[in-house]
Structure formats: structure tokens, C-alpha cells
């Protein structure tokens, strides 16, 4: 069964203190791994798609990496506006699964203190 586990559940950092969020996954044929940002009461906002092990993508202070079992979201010198819940999700190969459902982790609640 496809599964996504994120750690830690919550993380408090001082402004400028870099850290990493972890996403462990199992999926029958990875079609894509996604990172989303979600603000309270809002829908998930797309950040990155990773397709294969070794791939890396960057956007401002965020960098996402992928191995065969894990993905990391590295946050460099974060600012208070980076405070949000970060969701990791996987989509399996349609040959294995008839549908295109996305399996989400529970998320990491990140709080950046000024």
C-alpha cells in the first residue's frame, strides 16, 4: 500500500536557522513526488515535483531532494513568512493504479520565530 510519513510533526526555528524536513515514502512505481505549502484554512500551494532519485529543485530559500526512499525539504535562512504546514505527497504509476490519486503525509508544521 502506498504510504507517506513526514517528520518531524512540528518544528520551531529562529529566523535564519536552517533545517530540513523529512518525507519517507513507499509507492508502487513512482510517477512523481510533490511538496506543497499550506497556510491555515487554505488549500495546498504547489512547490515542487520530483520524478527520480538524485533529482534536486530549488526555489528561493527552499530546496527539495529525492532518493529512492526519502525526500528532504531543506530550508535555508528561513524568515517568519515561511511559517506554514509543508505537505509531501506521492503519485503512483497509473499502470499499477487505475486512478491518479495523490497520497499525502500528515505534514510538518513549521514556525519561524522572528
Amino acid at each position, binding site marked *: 500500500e502506498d504510504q*507517506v510519513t513526514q517528520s518531524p510533526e512540528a518544528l520551531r526555528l529562529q529566523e535564519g536557522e536552517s533545517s530540513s524536513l523529512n518525507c519517507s515514502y513507499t509507492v508502487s512505481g513512482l*510517477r*512523481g513526488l*510533490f511538496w*506543497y505549502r499550506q497556510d491555515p*484554512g*487554505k*488549500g*495546498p*500551494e*504547489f512547490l515542487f*515535483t520530483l520524478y527520480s532519485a538524485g533529482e534536486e529543485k530549488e526555489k528561493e530559500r527552499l530546496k527539495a531532494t529525492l532518493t529512492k526512499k526519502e525526500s528532504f525539504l531543506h530550508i535555508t535562512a528561513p524568515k517568519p513568512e515561511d511559517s506554514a504546514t509543508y*505537505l509531501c*505527497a506521492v*503519485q503512483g504509476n*497509473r499502470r499499477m*493504479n*487505475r*486512478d*491518479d*490519486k*495523490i*497520497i*499525502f*503525509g*500528515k*505534514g510538518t508544521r513549521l514556525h519561524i520565530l522572528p
Partner: protein
Amino acid sequence: DAGVTQSPTHLIKTRGQHVTLRCSPISGHKSVSWYQQVLGQGPQFIFQYYEKEERGRGNFPDRFSARQFPNYSSELNVNALLLGDSALYLCASSLEGFGYTFGSGTRLTVV
């Protein structure tokens, strides 16, 4: 460009009532999916529709149903509401079923 739009944004219903949630996908997107997000959890897959046909259903009771219209908009219906149905309901659209864009959701409260 308009993103995925959902209506209403907030809704309060009584146990046992019926609710209909609506979603308009991004123009040109043929696939619409519905997710339920309970507070503190990640979104859970409910349904996927592609070209007006159901492609997938998550582990939800038959009280949940959906449909997609010729213009690709979609409705999610929930009958006999329970307190546990209180959640943020998210609609997402995609061109071909990969890489979804999410709407802002409908916050449903069942009292």
C-alpha cells in the same frame, strides 16, 4: 488566469442533512479530484473524475457521491451528515491526471 474555484467557502450543516459542494477547474483541465482534510491531517482522496467518468474512489462510505459535468465542473454530495464529516473539502484539477492544482477549499462544519 482563474485558478480552481470552490463554493461555498464555509458551510454549517446539522447532523442528518445533505450538502452539495461545487468546484470549477482551471480552464482546459479535464480531471477533477476531491479530497477531505481533517484538522491536523493530510488530505485524503475521495474521488477522481476524468472526462466526466469516475476513475477512482477512496475509502469513503456510499454517503459520499460526486459527478462531473460536460464543462468539467464537479459536485461533491454528502448525505446523512455526521459530526465526523466536519473537515476542509478540497477540489483539485489537472490537465491529464498528473500534477494537481488545488482550490482554497470549502470548510464544512456539522453540528
